[in-house]
C-alpha cells in the first residue's frame, strides 16, 4: 500500500510539473459545458435531460484525461523503470488512486459549473447524489484505469479509449443517471437503495478483476 501511495505521489508531482492531463481536461470541461450551454440557451428542456448531460460530460472528460497515466509512461519509455521498481499490483493501485483524485477534482468542477450555469440542475436530495457521485467516481476511475492500461499498448490510443470504455462504463453511467434524476426530484434515498447497492458491487467487481488481470496486461 505504501508503495502504491508513492507511485501515486510520483504521478501527482509529475502532473504538477508537466500537466500531462490536467490542462487538457480543464479545457475540455469548459468547452463541453459551454457547448451545452449554447445549445440549450433559451430552450425549455426536461429536467431529466440535465441528469443525463451531466454524466455524459463526466464520461467524455474521463475519456479525454484518464488514459494519460499509462499512455505517458508508455510514450516516454518509462514503463521499464517503473516495472523495475515496483510490482504490478502497487503500480495499478497507484495509478488508480491518481485517476481517482483527478476524476474527483474534475467532476467537482463539472458539478459546480452545472449548478451555477443551469438553473434546472438543482439537487434536492444531496445524500443520494453525493453517494452516487463518490461511488460513481470510484467505478469510473477503476474501469478507466484498466482500459487505459490496455490501450497504452496499442498503436492508436486516443480514439480507441472511448470505444473500449463505453460498453464497460455504460451500466455504471445508466445507474448514475437514474440516481441523479431521483435526487433532482427530491425522492428519498430509500428509493435508490437497490441502485446504490449495484454501484457498490460494480466498484468491487471491476476493481478486483482489474487488480487480478493487470499483471497480464503489464508484462510484455
Amino acid at each position: 500500500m505504501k508503495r502504491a501511495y508513492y507511485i501515486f505521489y510520483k504521478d501527482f508531482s509529475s502532473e504538477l510539473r508537466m500537466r500531462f492531463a490536467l490542462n487538457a481536461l480543464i479545457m475540455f470541461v469548459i468547452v463541453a459545458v459551454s457547448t451545452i450551454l449554447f445549445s440549450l440557451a433559451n430552450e425549455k428542456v426536461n429536467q431529466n435531460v440535465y441528469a443525463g448531460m451531466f454524466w455524459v460530460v463526466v464520461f467524455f472528460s474521463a475519456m479525454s484525461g484518464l488514459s494519460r497515466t499509462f499512455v505517458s509512461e508508455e510514450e516516454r519509455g518509462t514503463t521499464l523503470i517503473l516495472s523495475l521498481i515496483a510490482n504490478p499490483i502497487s503500480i495499478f493501485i497507484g495509478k488508480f488512486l491518481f485517476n481517482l483524485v483527478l476524476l474527483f477534482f474534475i467532476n467537482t468542477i463539472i458539478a459546480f459549473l452545472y449548478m451555477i450555469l443551469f438553473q434546472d440542475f438543482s439537487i434536492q436530495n444531496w445524500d443520494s447524489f453525493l453517494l452516487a457521485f463518490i461511488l460513481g467516481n470510484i467505478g469510473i476511475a477503476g474501469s478507466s484505469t484498466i482500459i487505459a492500461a490496455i490501450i497504452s499498448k496499442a498503436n492508436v490510443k486516443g480514439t480507441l479509449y472511448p470505444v473500449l470504455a463505453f460498453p464497460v462504463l455504460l451500466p455504471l453511467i445508466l445507474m448514475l443517471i437514474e440516481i441523479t434524476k431521483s435526487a433532482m426530484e427530491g425522492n428519498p434515498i430509500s428509493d435508490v437503495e437497490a441502485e446504490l447497492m449495484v454501484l457498490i458491487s460494480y466498484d468491487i467487481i471491476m476493481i478486483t478483476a482489474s487488480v487480478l488481470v493487470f499483471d497480464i496486461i503489464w508484462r510484455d
Partner: protein
Amino acid sequence: MRAFWKYLLLILMTLVILGGLIPPIVAYPKNFFEFPLIPGLEDKARIIFFHVPTAWLTVLAYLIAMFYGIRYLKKKNIYDDMKSVSAAALGLVFCILATVTGSVWAKFTWGSFWHWDPRETSIFILLLIYGAYFALRSALDSEEKRARLSAIYSIIAFLTTPFFIFIMPRLMIGLHPGSLEIDPATGQIRASANPVIKFQMAANMRVVFFLSLTAFTILYFWFWNLTHRILKLEYNSQKEI
C-alpha cells in the same frame, strides 16, 4: 464422423426451413401441422425459428471466444487465440444478423425499426463490445499482445453483464416474449402480464424451434471449425524460418 455432422445438418436445416415456413397458422389448430394464431403476430410469429437462433449464437460465440481467450492466457498457445478470434468473428456476423432481422421485423410488428427494449439494447451493447474487440485487435501489431489483450478485454466486458440484467427492466419496457418488468406496486421485478409478452409456444412450434436451435448451433460449429482451421493453415504457411 465429419460427414455424419454435415448430413445431419442438411437434414435438420431442411426440416427447420420447411417446418418453419410451411405449416399454416390457424385460429384453432386441429392437426399437428397447424400452428396456433397469436393475435397481433399472425405469420410474423415465424421469425422465432430464425431470429432467436442467431441471437443465441451471438451469445454462444462470445462465451466461446472468451473461453479460448482465457485458455490462451493460461497456455500461451497461439492456436487458442485463432479459435477465439474466429469464434468472435462469427459472433459478430450473427450479431449483425440478429440485429437486422429483429429490427426489420420490429418495423412491421411494433411500428418502427428500433425501440430500446431490453433485448434490443443488449444486442446493441454486444455489437459495441464485438466492435471494440476487433478495433482493439487491429490496433495491436504483435501477435502475442493482440491475443493477450483482446482476451483480457473480453473478460472485462463480460463482467458487466450482471449489471445490465439488473438495470434493463428498470429503464425500459420489454417487448420481447418473456420480458421482465417492474411491478409498480411493490417495485419488484416480475414477469410481464402483457398477453403478447406472455406468449408461449405451442408444442409443435417448440419442436421446430428446438430443431432450429440445434441446426443453427451445428452450423455455427461447422463454420467456426472451418474458419479457425483456415487461420491455422494461413499461419503455418507464412511461418518464416
